[in-house]
């Protein structure tokens, strides 16, 4: 194992972690503050990617497309909150799961009807599509560097929003005790709409950032939503700091597992056995971590203060 490879894999893990953070932060906001289990959060990730793909072909520029797609995704989020989600708040978690599972099917099929089954490949402008040599032997795609930059900026922005603004104060208060917040005369409906739209935008942005790497495709949200739930369970539900740290940990563990586990296994078992078992075990690693956390610290690493 050489140092350059190790560094590149840490870079890849960080990029995956930040992308996960964008999805998980919205999920933890909605779950923590609205006390709402939103399985359809991945659907917003997908919708964001498709809207951005359409705008990319319309405007010819990926940057413009992202800037236009963000508010549109927010509007989609608000419409979904007003028409479907709002009626489910008072119900229990099982109803949330059933309702949002139905929403996943509706979103997937609508996407199928609008954009077709094929998915859309998103082209990047040349200056984003190149590579950068960070130092000797370590060459990384520019766009992945850009994802890291965006992820860190958003994380800083959210940190400021949650800790230093009135909205953030309400969000933190809502995460601790919703009833008390509304009893103090805060318009909880508007706050909920805002929080849901913010979550939608964050998920949509993650979808937009991944679509030039994979593509905008039906069901892409279902691929990431489970990992995002793992992130918020490890980080502590409702905690932004927890989501950030857990996302980075998960990103690194997943990437490192995929990269080096088979070499590690080869030390103790035959090459063939290592090649068969390593992919299976590396796919399980994050769930093993989640099981450990649930056993030792069920409230997660950084649970929000409840009282």
């Amino acid at each position, binding site marked *: 194992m050489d140092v350059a490879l190790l560094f590149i894999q840490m870079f890849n893990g960080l990029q*995956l972690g930040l992308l996960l953070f964008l999805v998980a932060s919205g999920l933890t906001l909605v779950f923590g503050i609205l006390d709402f289990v939103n399985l359809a959060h991945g659907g917003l990730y997908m919708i964001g990617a498709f809207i951005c793909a359409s705008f990319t*072909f319309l405007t010819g520029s990926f940057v413009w497309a992202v800037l236009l797609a963000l508010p549109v995704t927010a509007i989609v989020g608000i419409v979904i909150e007003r028409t479907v989600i709002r009626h489910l708040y008072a119900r229990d978690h099982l109803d949330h799961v059933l309702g949002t599972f139905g929403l996943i099917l509706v979103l997937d099929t609508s996407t199928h009807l609008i954009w077709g089954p094929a998915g859309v490949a998103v082209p990047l402008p040349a200056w984003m599509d190149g590579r950068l040599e960070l130092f000797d032997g370590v060459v990384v*795609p520019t766009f992945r560097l850009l994802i890291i930059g965006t992820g860190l900026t958003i994380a800083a922005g959210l940190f400021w929003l949650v800790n230093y603004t009135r909205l953030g104060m309400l969000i933190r208060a809502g995460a601790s005790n919703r009833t008390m917040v509304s009893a103090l005369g805060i318009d909880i409906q508007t706050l909920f709409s805002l929080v849901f739209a913010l979550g939608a935008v964050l998920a949509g942005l993650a979808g937009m950032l991944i679509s030039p*790497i994979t593509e905008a495709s039906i069901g892409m949200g279902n691929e990431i939503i489970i990992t995002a739930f793992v992130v918020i369970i490890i980080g502590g539900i409702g905690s932004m700091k927890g989501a950030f740290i857990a996302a980075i940990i998960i990103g690194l563990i997943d990437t490192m597992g995929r990269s080096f586990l088979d070499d590690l296994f080869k030390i103790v078992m035959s090459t063939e056995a290592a090649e068969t078992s390593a992919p299976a075990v590396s796919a399980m690693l994050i769930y093993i971590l989640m099981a450990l956390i649930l056993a030792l610290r069920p409230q997660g690493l950084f649970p929000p203060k409840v009282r």
Partner: protein
Amino acid sequence: MKKLLSTALAVTLLGGVAAQAAEVKIGFVTTLTTGGAVIGVDQQNAVNLAVEHMGGKMGDLDVNVIFGDDGFKPETGKQATDKLVKQDDVTFVAGYIWSHVLLASRKSALDAGKFLISANAGPSQIAGKLCHENFFSTSWQNDQTPMAMGEVLNQQGVKSLYIMSPNYAAGKNMVAGVERTFKGEVKGKDFTKWGKDAQLDFSAELAKAKASGADGLFVFYPGKAGGAFIKQYQQAGLKDTLPLYTVFTVDGISLPKLQAANFDGVLGSKTTQQWDPSLDNAQNKRFVADFKAKHGTYPSFYAAQAYDSIFLIKSAVEAVGGDLSNMDGMRAAMKQASYDSVRGKYSYGNNHMPVQNFYLREVVKDADGNWTTTVAKTVYENHQDPYAKECPLK
């Protein structure tokens, strides 16, 4: 009155039975939802085109194709097969993109005494120990196409190889296939997560492949994963240092999308296959021209195999004069492979897998500027899969 009603009902039912007897029912299981639907829809278009080309008739019988959706999952595919066999009582069950879906559905169709025709999947088990007299394939055995690629690598003097493939039945067959013929050193292998939540970001694997210092990179990523892989390969800038050799990754489905996004790194890349839109025979020319006219893109190999499967069934139905109870007669007719296949003439081995040519295809621009493939050369002539000898059928 009651009597009259029941008589009327009986007559209607009888009429229903009579109408049923005048048609041949074909079940076609493919993927019509999830990301895999892009392949399924291509196959569905090809099946409908085949039925149209035969005027909706096989001999005197009307053709009735009932589609089933496997949802990219073995258990759903088995359910769809059960429904076609038990409820619709079809005579032929065709389709099957995915090896794990075919393996799960196999017993449902064969135990009910139906013909099972794979229009894509070719798992080693069904070619070998699990072979069955009522199973036929219009595609290939999984190992064959990568075996042809291994041969190409030897001929091009590639000394060492890095391999990436999804972690499921066909992925393992593909890797076994290329390792069977490739004579150089395999520097490393990665099996990535597959299925409904398949891994589509290959950054870690590509970094490993690059660091391995191999001469070439062999991959198998069918469907939407193929397009994703090609893009990341290009973004990682590996084109000059780590040439790409693929099977079932660059096809008529991924090329239009890659062209729309201008990922020109794929031009000139090579893949092996038993069929190509440029193959020169009357059946293929008609198929490709009409498919393009109708759907605007070149058909994929999935479509070509689906198209063939319907014509294979037609040859069986016509050989027995429409007597669908004559299973032996239909089986004997299919074994001849006497229909006009879009790949040209081929024959069946003892395990009912095609014995056929394999070609090296190269990605080029056609006269209209569309990206497609053309035959660079013939790698194998009349190639039989390596599992045929494990099959007890004669």
